[in-house]
C-alpha cells in the first residue's frame, strides 16, 4: 500500500538516522548553537526565577483568550525573527555571488550557500513569514480584541481557541525541527508542482513543509470557526450589526475567508500526501495526473490567504486613524461592506497567480478584470481613511505613524498590483523582483499595521505604556529600511532580475542589492528600537500606568473596561447604545466603569488537554515525515483517546460569585474609581515575570493563589485614569 522508497528504512526509526543531522554544514551548526544557547538561557532563567509553575498555570494551560492571543503573538515574533534571518541570507548570497564562477565560501560553489540549501532558505522564508509569523500575530490580535470589542467574556469556544494555538505551534515546531533534523522543502513556499512529487523530491523536506502547513492550516480553519461563532453569538446586549466595531467586521470577513479557503489547502495537501505516501496520481506528471490542478487548488487557497492577512490589517488601521484624528471613522457602512466585498472577491481572482501558464486569453481577461475589481473596495477603504484624516485633530503618536506608513504602502503595493493585474504586463514581469516587491509592499503593509495594533492595544492589555519616542524612531528606521529594500527590488524587477536566484548573472544588479543590504541594516536598527520601546515601557511601568482609556480619544467598546483587562473582561456585560460605545459614553459623561450591580460569572477552568493534543499532533507530523508508522499509530490513537476522555469531563467551568467580582472590581466595598488609585489585586498576567519585583510580585502571587480555581486574573491598575 505504501510507496516504495529507495534508501534505508527500519520499523523503529523509519527513515531517521544520524546521517540526517547536518553536522557538517557550518551555517546550520551556527544556527544550531544559537538556538540551543537561547533555549538554554530561557530555560535557565525560568528555573532560576522559579517560574515553571507560573508559566504552566498562568499561560500554558490557560484558556483566557488574552493570554492565548499573547502566546500567538510571541510565537509569531519568534518565527518572524527566523524568517528575517532567511531573508537576510537570500539577499546577501546574491550580493556575494556574481556569476556562477565567483568565489565560494564555506564550501559553497559561489557565494556561501550551496544551491540546494539556498532553495530551502527561500522556501522556508515564504512559508514561515506567511503562515507562522504574520498569520499567528494577526490571529493573536483578533483573539484578544474581538471578544473585548463586542463585550464578551471570551471567545465562543475557549478550549478550541487554545487547541488552534497549539496546532499552529506544532506546525511551527515542525519547521524549526526541520532545520536540524533532515532538511526543509526546496520547492518554494507554494510547493511548485511536480517538484514536490516523490521522484523529484525523495527527501523529507517536502514532507516537513507539507505537514507543518497542514497543521497550521487546520488550526487557522478552526480559529476562523471560533471567531465567526463568537461574533454572531456573543455580542453584548444592544450591539446590532450596525454597532459592531470595524476591526471586528474585518475579523468576521477574514474568518469567512479562513473557514472557506483553508480547507481547500488541506484538501490539496491531503492529495499531495496521498501521492507521496500511497503512490496515487493526483498531481503526478504521468498516469493521468494533472499538474495544473494542484496549482489551481493551491491558489484557490493562496489568494484568499492574502486577504485573510490583509483584512485584519485594514481593521487595525480603521481603529487607529479615528482615535488619533479625534473623529469618528468616515463611512462606517461602506467600510464594513468593503471588507465583505474584498472577502467575496478574493475567491474569483486566483488565476492571476499563473497568467503565463497558458489558460488562454479569455480566461486571463476574466481574471485580470476581476483582479482590478478588488481595487474598488480597497479604494473605498483608502478614501475613507483619507476623509477620516481630513480636518481631524491629528496626533502623531507612534501607532498613528505606523498606520500612515501602512497607508503609503497600500498605495504603492496597490498601484503595482493593478499593473500586475493586466495579463499583458504580467507576461513581462511575472516571477521578477518587481512581483516580489509588489507583494512585499502588502506584506509590509500588514507588518506596519500589526505593529501599530500592538502599540495601540498594548496599554489596554498590559496596563502600561510602551515608550513612544523609541516607537517613533523604530518607525522611521523601519520605513527607511522598507524604502531601501523594496525600492531596490522594484528597480531590479525592471532591470530584469527574476526571483529565487542563487547567483546573479549581471554585475549591474549589484548596486541595488547593496542598497537592499543597507535597508536590512536599517531594519536591524528599527528592531533595536522596538525592543528598547518594550524595555523602557517595562522599566517605567510603575510611573507610567495606562488608564482604561490610554489614548484619551479612543472610541470602541474595548476601552470601557480596565487596563489591564481582568480575566472576565467585563464585571457586568455593558449595554451598547451606539456605534462607538466608549466615545458615546464619554460624550454623555457616563464614564463610570464601576457597575452598580454584579452577577455570578461562569469561567472556563484551565486545562492542559489542548497542549497535550498539540504535542500529539507534533508527534504525528514527525512520525509522518520520517515514516515512523508506529509513532503515527500511537499518536492518532492518543488524539482520539484524549478527545474522548475530555468529552466525559462535565466540570470544565467554575463560577465566580457576584460578591467576589464586586470585590475584585472595586465596587461595593472595593476601591473607589479614582484616577491613579492603587489596585490591591494586580493581575498576575500583565507584567512579565522577569520584570516583576518584590511587593507587586508577592501581592500578585498571594491573590493568584487564593483565587486559583481555574485562574482569575482580576483587577485594574490605575483604574479609569485618563491621560
Amino acid at each position, binding site marked *: 500500500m505504501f510507496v516504495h522508497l529507495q534508501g534505508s528504512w527500519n520499523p523503529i526509526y523509519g527513515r531517521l538516522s544520524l546521517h540526517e543531522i547536518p553536522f557538517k554544514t557550518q551555517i546550520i551548526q551556527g544556527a544550531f548553537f544559537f538556538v540551543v544557547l537561547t533555549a538554554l538561557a530561557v530555560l535557565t532563567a525560568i528555573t532560576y526565577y522559579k517560574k515553571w509553575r507560573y508559566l504552566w498555570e498562568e499561560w500554558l494551560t490557560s484558556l483566557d483568550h488574552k493570554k492565548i492571543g499573547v502566546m500567538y503573538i510571541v510565537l509569531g515574533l519568534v518565527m518572524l525573527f527566523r524568517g528575517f534571518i532567511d531573508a537576510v541570507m537570500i539577499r546577501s548570497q546574491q550580493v556575494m555571488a556574481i556569476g556562477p564562477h565567483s568565489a565560494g565560501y564555506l564550501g559553497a560553489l559561489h557565494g556561501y550557500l550551496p544551491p540546494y540549501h539556498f532553495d530551502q532558505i527561500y522556501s522556508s522564508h515564504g512559508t514561515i513569514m506567511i503562515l507562522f509569523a504574520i498569520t499567528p500575530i494577526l490571529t493573536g490580535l483578533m483573539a484578544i480584541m474581538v471578544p473585548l470589542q463586542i463585550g464578551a467574556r471570551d471567545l465562543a469556544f475557549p478550549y478550541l481557541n487554545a487547541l488552534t494555538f497549539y496546532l499552529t505551534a506544532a506546525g511551527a515546531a515542525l519547521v524549526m525541527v526541520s532545520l536540524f533534523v533532515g532538511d526543509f522543502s526546496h520547492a518554494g513556499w507554494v510547493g511548485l508542482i511536480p517538484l514536490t512529487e516523490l521522484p523529484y523530491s525523495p527527501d523529507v523536506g517536502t514532507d516537513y513543509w507539507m505537514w507543518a502547513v497542514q497543521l497550521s492550516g487546520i488550526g487557522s480553519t478552526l480559529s476562523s470557526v471560533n471567531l465567526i461563532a463568537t461574533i454572531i453569538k456573543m455580542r453584548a446586549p*444592544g450591539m446590532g450589526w450596525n454597532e459592531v466595531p470595524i476591526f471586528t467586521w474585518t475579523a468576521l470577513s477574514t474568518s469567512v475567508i479562513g473557514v*472557506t479557503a483553508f480547507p481547500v489547502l488541506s484538501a490539496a495537501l491531503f492529495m499531495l500526501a496521498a501521492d507521496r505516501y500511497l503512490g496515487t496520481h493526483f498531481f503526478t506528471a504521468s498516469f493521468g495526473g494533472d499538474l495544473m490542478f494542484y496549482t489551481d487548488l493551491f491558489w484557490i487557497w493562496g489568494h484568499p490567504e492574502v486577504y485573510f492577512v490583509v483584512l485584519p490589517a485594514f481593521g487595525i488601521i480603521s481603529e487607529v486613524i479615528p482615535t488619533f484624528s479625534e473623529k469618528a471613522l468616515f463611512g462606517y457602512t461602506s467600510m464594513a461592506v468593503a471588507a465583505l466585498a474584498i472577502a467575496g472577491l478574493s475567491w474569483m481572482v486566483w488565476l492571476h497567480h499563473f497568467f503565463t501558464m497558458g489558460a488562454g486569453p479569455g480566461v486571463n481577461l476574466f481574471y485580470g478584470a476581476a483582479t482590478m475589481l478588488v481595487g474598488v473596495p480597497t479604494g473605498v477603504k483608502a478614501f475613507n481613511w483619507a476623509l477620516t484624516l481630513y480636518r481631524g485633530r491629528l496626533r502623531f503618536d507612534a501607532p498613528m505613524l505606523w498606520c500612515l506608513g501602512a497607508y503609503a504602502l497600500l498605495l504603492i503595493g496597490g498601484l503595482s498590483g493593478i499593473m500586475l493585474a493586466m495579463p499583458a504586463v504580467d507576461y513581462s514581469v511575472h516571477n521578477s523582483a518587481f512581483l516580489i516587491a509588489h507583494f512585499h509592499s502588502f506584506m509590509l503593509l500588514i507588518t506596519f499595521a500589526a505593529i501599530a495594533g500592538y502599540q495601540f492595544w498594548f496599554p489596554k492589555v498590559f496596563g502600561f505604556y510602551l515608550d513612544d519616542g523609541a516607537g517613533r524612531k523604530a518607525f522611521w528606521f523601519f520605513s527607511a529600511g522598507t524604502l531601501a529594500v523594496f525600492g531596490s527590488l522594484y528597480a531590479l524587477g525592471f532591470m530584469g532580475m527574476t526571483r529565487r536566484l542563487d547567483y546573479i548573472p549581471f554585475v549591474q544588479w549589484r548596486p541595488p542589492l547593496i542598497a537592499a543590504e543597507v535597508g536590512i541594516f536599517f531594519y536591524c536598527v528599527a528592531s533595536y528600537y522596538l525592543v528598547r520601546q518594550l524595555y523602557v515601557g517595562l522599566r517605567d511601568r510603575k510611573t507610567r500606568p495606562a488608564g482604561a482609556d490610554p489614548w484619551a480619544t479612543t472610541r470602541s467598546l474595548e476601552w470601557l473596561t480596565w487596563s489591564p483587562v481582568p480575566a472576565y473582561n467585563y464585571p457586568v456585560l455593558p449595554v451598547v447604545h451606539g456605534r462607538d460605545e466608549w466615545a458615546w459614553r464619554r460624550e*454623555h459623561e457616563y464614564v463610570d466603569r464601576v457597575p452598580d450591580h454584579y452577577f455570578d460569572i461562569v469561567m472556563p477552568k484551565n486545562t492542559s488537554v489542548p497542549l497535550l493534543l498539540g504535542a500529539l499532533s507534533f508527534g504525528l507530523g514527525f512520525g509522518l515525515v520520517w515514516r515512523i508508522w508506529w509513532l503515527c499509530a500511537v499518536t492518532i490513537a492518543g488524539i482520539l483517546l484524549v478527545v474522548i476522555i475530555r468529552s466525559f469531563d462535565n466540570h470544565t467551568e467554575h463560577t465566580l460569585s457576584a460578591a467576589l467580582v464586586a470585590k475584585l472590581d472595586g465596587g461595593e466595598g472595593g476601591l473607589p474609581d479614582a484616577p491613579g488609585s492603587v489596585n490591591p489585586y494586580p493581575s498576575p498576567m500583565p507584567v512579565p515575570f522577569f520584570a516583576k519585583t518584590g511587593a507587586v510580585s508577592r501581592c500578585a502571587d498571594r491573590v493568584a493563589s487564593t483565587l486559583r480555581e481555574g485562574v482569575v486574573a482580576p483587577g485594574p491598575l490605575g483604574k479609569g485614569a485618563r491621560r
Partner: protein
Amino acid sequence: MSGQEAIREQGLWDRKDVHHDKIGTHTLGFWLYMLSDSMVYAALFGASVVLGHRMNAAGGPMGATVLHPLSAYWETLLLLASGLAYGLALQGLKRGRKALVLAWMTVAFLLGAGFAALSVHTLLALIARGITPERSGYLSADLALIVYHALHIGLGLVWFLVMMVQVAVFGFHPNVVYRLLNLKLFWFFQSFVWVLVFSFTYLRGVLI
C-alpha cells in the same frame, strides 16, 4: 432608539444576567465546521471531475468496470435508514426518554456499521481485482472521495458509541444534548454527501 431612551430602559450595564445560549452556539460552530469540511469535499469532487477523463485513466479501467451502482444502492438504503433511525432517536430526546434514545441509536449504529462493512467490502473487492488508486489519476480521484467519506462514517460510528455511553451515564446533560444535536447534523450531512457521491462517482461512472 435614541441614547437617552436606551439609558432609561436598559441602563449602562446588563440587568438581565445574559447567558449566551450554549447549545445554539455549539450548533452554529458545528455548522461552520461542516462548511469547512464541505470545502474539502468540494475539492475532492473537483478532483473527480478534473481527473474524470479517459486520458486520466491512463489506459486503465474506468466507469462501470470499476464501480457498479447496484452495490452502492444497498449502501444508500442502509445509510439513509440509519439517518432515519437517528432521527427517531432524537424524538426520544424530545420526550426525554433515555431508553428510546438508546434503542434507536443502537439501530442507527448497526445500520451505519452495515454501510461501513459494505464500503470496506467494495474497496477490498476492487483491490483484489487489481483496481487500486496507484493505477491512474482517475482511480485516485474516485477512490479518494469514497475513502474520505468512509473515514467520516468510521469516525461517526465512534462518535455514536461515545454518545450512547454518555447518554447512559449522564442522561440529558446540556453537554450531551448539544453533542447529540451535532451528531445529527454530522450524520445527515454524511448521508447528503453520500447522495452526491452516489450520483457523481457511481451513476456518472456508468455513463463515461
